[in-house]
């Protein structure tokens, strides 16, 4: 059963307890200065974005078909069947293609370390695997961040919108965006306001469309190049053979003349 996080911005009170819980779980420092940072970084894997009196949690969306996992040349990033997109730092070579590819700008790098890692929210994969909710959901005092089965959370989100259509924009962000995400968002104002605008097509199909043709290109190209070589060199062989023949004929003629 695939797990998800449902974040309902209309219930959020910007207490930032999710930020604190996340920092604790990931053994990262957390103080007032860090709490004031309105961006994700290698030391802050989630934050509550403030736009006037509106809030929006930002964290790794843990996509159903993640661009980061698809581009990673060493499969350090993986989508697990439970939902979390995990990162195995022992495989990572530090090419940072995941950072380039992520449509949400989530993976962050430890730029100041000599042996850096990529850092991102992994939806508390260890806790989720043990049947527990994510640290942020557990810490949330208002139920703005809720953890559960994806299907049930989608049903609940639809239900909330149906019951109070004036309170919400009629959209569950993450239901279809980039092929669906394991983090679902509800808001009273358009998601654009928080810089959330992504196509519905899963991005990995854009590259896989090309990559999946490679075996065909190699086999076709191999036959084609081999064929061209065979033809061009056959011509040379024929020319050489004809030249020998002509020479032999000429010699015979000369012999005949001598006789």
């Amino acid at each position, binding site marked *: 059963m695939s797990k998800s996080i449902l974040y309902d911005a209309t219930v959020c009170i910007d207490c930032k307890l999710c930020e604190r819980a996340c920092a604790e779980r990931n053994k990262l420092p957390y103080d007032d200065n860090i709490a004031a940072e309105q961006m994700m970084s290698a030391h802050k894997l989630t934050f509550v974005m403030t736009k006037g009196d509106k809030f929006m949690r930002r964290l790794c969306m843990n996509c159903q078909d993640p661009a980061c996992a698809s581009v990673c040349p060493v499969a350090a990033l993986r989508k697990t069947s439970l939902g979390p997109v995990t990162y195995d730092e022992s495989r990572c070579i530090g090419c940072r293609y995941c950072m380039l590819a992520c449509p949400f700008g989530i993976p962050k790098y430890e730029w100041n370390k000599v042996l*850096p890692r990529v850092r991102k929210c992994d939806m508390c994969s260890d806790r989720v695997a043990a049947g527990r909710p994510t640290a942020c959901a557990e810490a949330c005092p208002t139920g703005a961040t809720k953890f559960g089965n994806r299907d049930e959370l989608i049903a609940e989100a639809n239900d909330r919108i149906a019951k109070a259509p004036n309170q919400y924009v009629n959209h569950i962000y993450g239901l279809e965006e980039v092929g669906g995400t394991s983090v679902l968002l509800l808001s009273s104002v358009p998601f654009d306001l928080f810089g959330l*605008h992504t196509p519905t097509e899963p991005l990995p199909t854009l590259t896989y469309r090309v990559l999946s043709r490679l075996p065909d290109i190699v086999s076709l190209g191999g036959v084609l190049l081999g064929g061209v070589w065979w033809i*061009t060199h056959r011509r040379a062989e024929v020319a050489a053979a004809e030249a020998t023949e002509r020479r032999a004929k000429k010699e015979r003629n000369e012999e005949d003349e001598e006789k």
Partner: protein
Amino acid sequence: MKLPKLSFWKAVMVVVLLAGAYATVLRFTRGLGASTNLTDRFPWGLWIGFDVMCGVMLAAGGFTLTAAVYIFNLERFRPIVRPTVLTAFLGYSLVVAALMFDLGRPYRIWHPLVMWNPHSVMFEVAWCVTLYTSVLSLEFAPIIFERLRMEKALQIQHAIVIPLVILGVLLSTLHQSSLGSLYLIVPEKLHPLWYSPLLPVFFFISAICVGLAMTIFESYMSSKAFGKQLELPLLISLGRVLVVALAVYAVLRFQDLYHRGALQYLRHLGYETDLFLVEVVLGLLLPIALLLSRRIRETTGGLYLAAVLVLLGFVTNRLNVAVTGMEASSGLRYFPKWTELAITGSMIVAGFAVFTLAAKYLPIFPEAGASGTRTGQGTHPSPVARVDLAFSHARKA
């Protein structure tokens, strides 16, 4: 003992290498944050945009020329195969060297070979580059074998050369185009003047153009530097092929911009548009015009000028894809730090230096006066004269 004469360009090279050495120390003791202007919002910079993307592109002469000679049986191009294979081998070696700087964990560069992800373009590029560098070293091997008079090894290499060349062409086709495919995953981030589903096709065709232009460029440079014979009639026919390849590229690029409705971005001049125009007008349309003129095409100076414009044009193209086109969406302007420039500069210097040494000690160029006529001595345009100085020690030594 007399001290070697220190020419201006030699001094520049030494300064660049010293700066590069210091930058290397900074890179490996302080990390990427202190030694580059890269950030979370702009994770790929000069080392990927120039050293890797342009490095691979500039090495494309290797597969273009070996295909022409070995597969298409265009024997007359054989004399220029060796220098292009050498350039290609050097180019790929430098790409790997640059990656050792750019990767956060360079000592794990071998990971993609054992930890697979066939869905990743980068994985495919890693495999292709590894295999193709091996192929290039085997294609280059006879030059070493000849020097060491290893007859048996030469025979073995000769027996496998055709499959080797075919493999090399296939691998090059794959990864030259795949460097473009890398950017297919960022439709929202790369500016519409450069993002296109045809990126892999553009990268492949432009690699062929650059392969041809690079061959013209280095044949000319070598003839100036080493006094080796310049095969002018050969280079003129390369110029003819080049102008056709450029025209195909230009038409396809225009069609693509038109069909995607991206031409509207050209209505207003600005950062992206300006750099697009540099790429397309100076690096594509101008060399096409030059090469179409018989009078220009058939002089060494004109041919050389067109080739240099093509090289600069496509270098701009790669930098536009990797840097210019990615800036607006990141909300940042990226300009490399001095350390990044110093290391890239050192790579270029190292490339020139190794090529010079190889040309001096290995049988790269055909013996002068073996066939044809010596040409290209009459014209001496100023840009060449300056670069020529860089090579002067090779000639004098």
